[in-house]
């Protein structure tokens, strides 16, 4: 993986994914390892993102590396009209690796082709966010002990949510059964269902999940955003259907864990937070270990 960029989860082979997850396990046991001593990591956030940026910076700091960069485009030369091409060519002279978030889709692939150093895509518009997918995989494997043959419930906005598409594509490598729970307006797009059918994987679609929740190994919650609905009445009708409450978890499997890419608004009631099956804050912590692993793998350090 040395000197490779990470733009899309599909760029990685299954072996490479497992290698990163195994490395992340090592960082969970021993988070402070000065492996990036003398290395400079550029974090270029053309679009603000608190969690992703802080967890990358935390990962670099724990590895003893230094960070240069900006947290929003308004403090960069973009405001002077510089192209992404020029920014990337310039910044790649200053650092050993670039972490980039940009609102334009495909910007990360483009950056990886012109940068002289590896590029990690920390989100390119609605397209890809592979480090989120890797930390999701890490969280699933850690809580279930395996990635094989799990029953995964994905709830909420399945039409526009890039994290759910990437997670679904990635998990399809391990004989997963999927349950998609979404309002009609936000159903899983046909192209993804066709992808699963071609692989011979089982998936089920539901509008509500209170009846079937007892089968789940993982519930992956996402936010149903009001602005996705053309008709506000439709939103009012469904907004409470996709809210997870503690009492719904009564008859669920003991190994069930609830994941959420965060930020949460109201789709997981705060009474779930105390339930030991709630895992979303630990999931965010796993993001640091996973990103430590990704940085080291792409720099060829581990």
């Amino acid at each position, binding site marked *: 993986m040395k000197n490779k960029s990470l733009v*899309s989860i599909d760029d990685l082979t299954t072996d490479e994914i497992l290698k990163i997850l195994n490395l992340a396990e090592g960082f969970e046991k021993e988070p402070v390892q000065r492996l990036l001593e003398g290395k400079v990591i550029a974090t270029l956030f053309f679009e603000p993102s608190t969690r992703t940026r802080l967890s990358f910076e935390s990962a670099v700091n724990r590895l003893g590396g230094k960070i240069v960069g900006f947290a929003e485009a308004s403090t960069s030369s973009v405001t002077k009209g510089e*192209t*992404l*091409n020029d920014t990337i060519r310039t910044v790649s002279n200053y650092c050993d690796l670039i972490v980039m978030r940009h*609102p*334009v*889709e*495909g*910007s990360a*692939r*483009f950056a990886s082709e012109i940068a002289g150093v590896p590029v990690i895509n920390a989100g*390119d*518009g*609605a*397209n*890809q966010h592979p480090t989120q997918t890797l930390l999701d995989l890490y969280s699933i494997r850690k809580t279930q002990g395996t990635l094989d043959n799990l029953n995964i419930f994905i709830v909420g906005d399945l039409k526009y949510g890039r994290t759910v598409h990437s997670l679904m594509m990635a998990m399809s490598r391990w004989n997963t059964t999927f349950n998609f729970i979404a309002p009609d307006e936000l159903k899983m797009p046909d*192209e993804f269902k066709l992808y699963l059918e071609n692989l011979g994987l089982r998936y089920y679609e539901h509008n509500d999940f209170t009846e079937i929740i007892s089968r789940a190994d993982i519930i992956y919650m996402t936010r149903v955003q009001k602005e996705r609905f053309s008709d506000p009445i439709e939103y009012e009708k469904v907004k409470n259907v996709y809210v997870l409450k503690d009492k719904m978890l009564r008859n669920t499997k003991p190994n069930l864990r609830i994941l959420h890419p965060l930020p949460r608004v109201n789709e997981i009631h705060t009474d779930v937070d105390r339930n030991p099956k709630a895992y979303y804050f630990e999931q965010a912590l796993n993001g640091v270990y996973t990103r430590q692993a990704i940085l080291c793998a792409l720099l060829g350090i581990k």
Partner: protein
Amino acid sequence: MKEPKQLMVSAIQNGTVIDHVPAKNLFKVIQILGLDHIDNQITFGTNLESKKLGRKAIIKISDKFFEDDDINRIALVAPDAKLNIIRDYEVVEKKVVEVPDAITGIARCMNPKCITNFEEVTTRFRVVSKKNVALKCHYCEKITSQENMQII
């Protein structure tokens, strides 16, 4: 009796004849093949009657022979084009165009949020369907279908 005046595209001794080009895409074919930048003799006719296409165009290029990879680049704008390879006024070979597996340049990505529509980036696509041509963008990974396809 006076012979009727005929307008015809004269025969060539050696070279390539590209027939069955949709008339509206003649200049796109010329552009894609870079015919506007070469020194060979070129004659073309357009808005000729065609049972199949309604109005077709024909291009004759002297002393020019194309590689398959080059000629397949016109498949997006002239999917029914037929090539006649001419040697010494005789047709020695006939070819049809085939939609290639990958397309560089030529088409625009239909996703308005794609980087190729923001910066000077040459578009790149993988052809995911050849029958009803569908292109998957190498950058934003969105699909551009035949009906939304715009030629650059």
